[in-house]
């Protein structure tokens, strides 16, 4: 059988079609010989010794000393081969100071004694001073050395005789920063108090009545929540039937095969299409251009005029009758006014109520936290046995949200991106299992 000629131009095709196992085996053997010596020249006993554990005992102190004698940190600096340096005498690169001639050194010393400095040195000294000065002027946290509310002689209105334009012009030269502060900065975004007055039942040793009142409040709130939950369940979860998987599939099949009546197919084939006269009829036939006669036009015009006259007469008549109805109209106007007033009051009331509520600032709605309370069993009546409830930090955070300072938010866990991993075709190291195997199978043939 004649072997098929194949291209061996590329590395991949070379690998594919050339068997180099014998070369590799040979090299492998050679390496082994290099390592272990020529084959079968020595016996096993000569080649190997039995490894025995070190029996010599050294004390801890000595161990430590041994370790310290050869520290790991310097191992990198040591030569890692026993081959000696081929260049026995190496010249060290001398530093700048060492390279200077003695004469220059002497001259520089004299200069220093005299106090003569180079421009470079002068600059460096100046720079250092400047740096120190600047560092001192840097603002430090937690250092308060001035009264910022102290009334200074205000530069912005030095003199009433100077017009504002010229003051602005002059101030620009002094470096005063002129800007108007928006009013919203000084305003609070809500009328709610920063710290709510505490419920008397929150005391560590409350009176019975206060504590009961607090518990009642908590209970009513909880009941409302339960009621809402029940409602939501009823409206959402409970309206759906629970069906087992088998029946679900069955119904799905029946529903989906609706209209595809397999039984009636035969009978429907026999039915004949309805009879027609064979003439084509459009759904919307074209409009006919029918002209009106002169008489028709005259009549139409007359009717129009008559209608207008009737309308005018009616208005005239109404004017007269309205004069008689003046009292009635006034009453009506009054009624409207009253309604407007009532609506205004309502609106004011609503606005007032709304000002005490939290505004909608973000996508998330503000939710109040649960009321904190001690159960009656937790009350010990002493300061030592007090059981702390609620975290103040959460309380403040929620309060800020309630007072429209920050939009309500929740922490969103960052989603980890899903990676689809694969190896680039060129980086695949599977040529032995794919390519070479194919080749061997070819050879066998």
């Amino acid at each position: 059988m004649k072997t098929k000629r194949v291209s061996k131009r590329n590395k991949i095709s070379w690998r594919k079609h050339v068997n180099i196992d014998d070369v590799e085996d040979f090299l492998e053997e050679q390496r082994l010989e290099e390592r272990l010596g020529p084959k079968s020249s020595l016996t096993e006993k000569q080649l190997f010794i039995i490894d025995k554990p070190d029996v010599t005992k050294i004390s801890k102190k000595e161990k430590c000393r041994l370790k310290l004698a050869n520290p790991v940190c310097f191992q990198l600096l040591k030569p890692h081969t026993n081959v000696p340096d081929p260049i026995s005498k190496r010249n060290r690169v001398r530093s700048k100071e060492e390279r200077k001639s003695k004469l220059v050194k002497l001259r520089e010393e004299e200069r220093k004694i005299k106090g003569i400095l180079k421009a470079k040195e002068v600059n460096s000294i100046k720079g250092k001073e400047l740096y120190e000065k600047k560092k001192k002027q840097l603002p430090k946290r937690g250092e308060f050395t001035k009264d910022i509310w102290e009334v200074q002689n205000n530069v912005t209105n030095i003199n009433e005789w100077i017009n504002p334009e010229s003051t602005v012009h002059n101030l620009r030269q002094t470096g005063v920063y002129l800007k108007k502060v928006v009013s919203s900065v000084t305003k609070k975004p809500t009328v709610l108090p920063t710290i709510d007055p505490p419920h008397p039942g929150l005391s560590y040793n409350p009176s019975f009545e206060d504590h009961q009142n607090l518990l009642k409040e908590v209970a009513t709130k909880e009941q409302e929540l339960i009621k809402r939950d029940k409602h939501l369940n009823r409206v959402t979860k409970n309206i759906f039937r629970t069906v087992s998987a088998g029946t679900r599939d069955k119904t799905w099949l029946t529903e989906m095969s609706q209209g595809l009546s397999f039984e009636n197919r035969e009978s429907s084939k026999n039915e004949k299409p309805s009879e027609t006269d064979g003439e084509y009829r459009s759904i919307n036939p074209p409009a006919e251009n029918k002209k009106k006669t002169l008489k028709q036009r005259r009549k139409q015009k007359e009717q129009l005029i008559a209608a207008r006259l009737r309308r005018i007469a009616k208005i005239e008549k109404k004017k007269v009758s309205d004069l008689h109805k003046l009292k009635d109209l006034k009453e009506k106007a009054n009624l409207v006014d009253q309604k407007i007033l009532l609506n205004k009051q309502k609106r004011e009331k609503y606005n007032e109520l709304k000002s005490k509520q939290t505004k909608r600032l973000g996508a998330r709605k503000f939710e109040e936290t649960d009321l904190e309370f001690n159960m009656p069993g937790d009350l010990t009546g002493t300061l030592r046995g007090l059981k702390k409830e609620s975290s103040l930090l959460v309380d403040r955070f929620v309060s800020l949200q309630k007072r429209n300072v920050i939009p309500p938010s929740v922490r969103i866990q960052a989603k980890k991106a899903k990676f689809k991993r694969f190896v680039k075709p060129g980086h695949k190291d599977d040529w032995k299992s794919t390519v070479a195997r194919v080749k061997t199978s070819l050879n066998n043939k």
Partner: protein
Amino acid sequence: MVSKKKKKFSSGEGAKYISRRAALRKLQVSLREFRRLCILKGIYPREPRNRKKAQKGDTGIKTLYHIKDIQFLLHEPIIWKLRDIKTGSKKIAKARALKDYEKIHKFNNSYPVLKLDHIVKERYPTFIDALRDLDDCLTLCFLFSTFPSMKHIPRDQSQLCRRLTTEFMHYIIEAGVLRKVFVSIKGYYYQAEIKGQTVTWIVPHHFSFEPQNRAEVDFKLMSIFVEFYIVMLGFVNFRLYHSLNLHYPPKFPSLSATNIEKQLVDEDVFVSERVAALNYSIAKNSNDIVEEDVAIDDFCNEDDPEKLAEAKKEAESIENLKTLFKGLKFFLNREVPREPIVFMLRCFGGEVSWDKLLFVGATFDENDESITHQIVDRPSVDNKYTSRYYVQPQWIFDSINNRELMPVKKYFMGEILPPHLSPFTNKGLTDIYMPLEERALHDPTLLEEIHKKDKEAEDSEKNDIAENNDDDHIDESESDIESAEELQENDTKKKLSVAPGKVTKEDPQQKGKEARQEYRLREKMVKNKHKRLYKSMMQNKLERKKEIWLLRKKRRLHEEAKNEKNQKS
């Protein structure tokens, strides 16, 4: 020529607001920087009147800002600083990744510091404005002062909070402006009156730090608030200290470290520890006495004499409160929370000490005979001193809230305490029916009266049962004697008194009539706007009075019936 078509949302509600995303683009900052900027500058999101228009036709809910506010932020110089901070932290992160410690050190040293002085001045144009907004500041600072150093918080923040809050407490102590204290399960509620502004704050209980749930609170955000409040509190402290002629930062006049102590700690730690002890009065700049409170004028433009009298009474009680614990010496047992109690006692002039080993700054030992009160929070103590009262800490709270020293009897060690009532309850409606027992809770003198009454009743009952006839005679005779004595006394008084000349005879009826007429005239002056409100107020008042009268009557009748029953049996 046809005029140019007006673009939608170029005027009105649509032009007023800007979404957060648009604001970010306009300011060229990241969301994190924007948040920080807004918090520092005091700019908050707004709720528009018509959301669809404000969002330029977009439905759904966005966070909106006022466009003027954003334009204002555009001028802020700290924007540049924030950008610097961003680049600085990037550099540090890179150096850290490369383990280039020299560079890390260098960048850390030149890390930009935000200077917030001008923002404090901008947000609070006057000092009073700053005081008005001190509630949040104090509560957050007190809270953060209890935190250890944590991941999202600047390294020195909690320490700074601690320093500034203790300084503030020192001011309160020196000025004696604390008014109310309430110990709740949340923490200690304090209320002070500084320059006419009521400042309320909450201090957490001194228990060990409990880690917060990260999902609940945005720690970074809160620490930005604290960053601003620290600066604000610092300047407020500065001003407050100087208003009292105190040296700021606090110094102690009579504090010299012994040699051993000097060797043990360095100077700063030594001073800061003494500051934290709250037990030394701080040094003054000059000895000029700062006059703070001015006596209320007799001639006042307040119409209502009742109100004037009330105000005077209030001023008197405050004067009383300021020297409430003066001359008293307290010793705190070790189970009592030291800081709040020392703060309260020292505010009103008390001298306090504690166990030497508990904390620095103890001034006298437990065996000092001049101690008047020992604050104890345990059922019993091994060796007691007879020269002092052993009271529970609630005695202090209740005394402060009532503005007078409560009788110690009910607060003795091991006693079941009377309830600790909130001083923050609304006092608006005083004309509410309160049974006698409840009133006694607020007024200790009344309690004694009730007690006496009960005892008398009991005694009389006992007497009645034991000796029916004999007593009556004696009683009668005694009462006779007493009445005779009284008469005699009256006679002697008459003899001594000088009869005044009759000048004018004031008809009380006429006077009352005139007063009523005047009152009606004044009623007419009520604005139309408030007329309805006034009317309903008066009506409610009347109704409440009626109810009180009715309930009292019921009680009286009930008690009379009870008494009769008792007597019969």
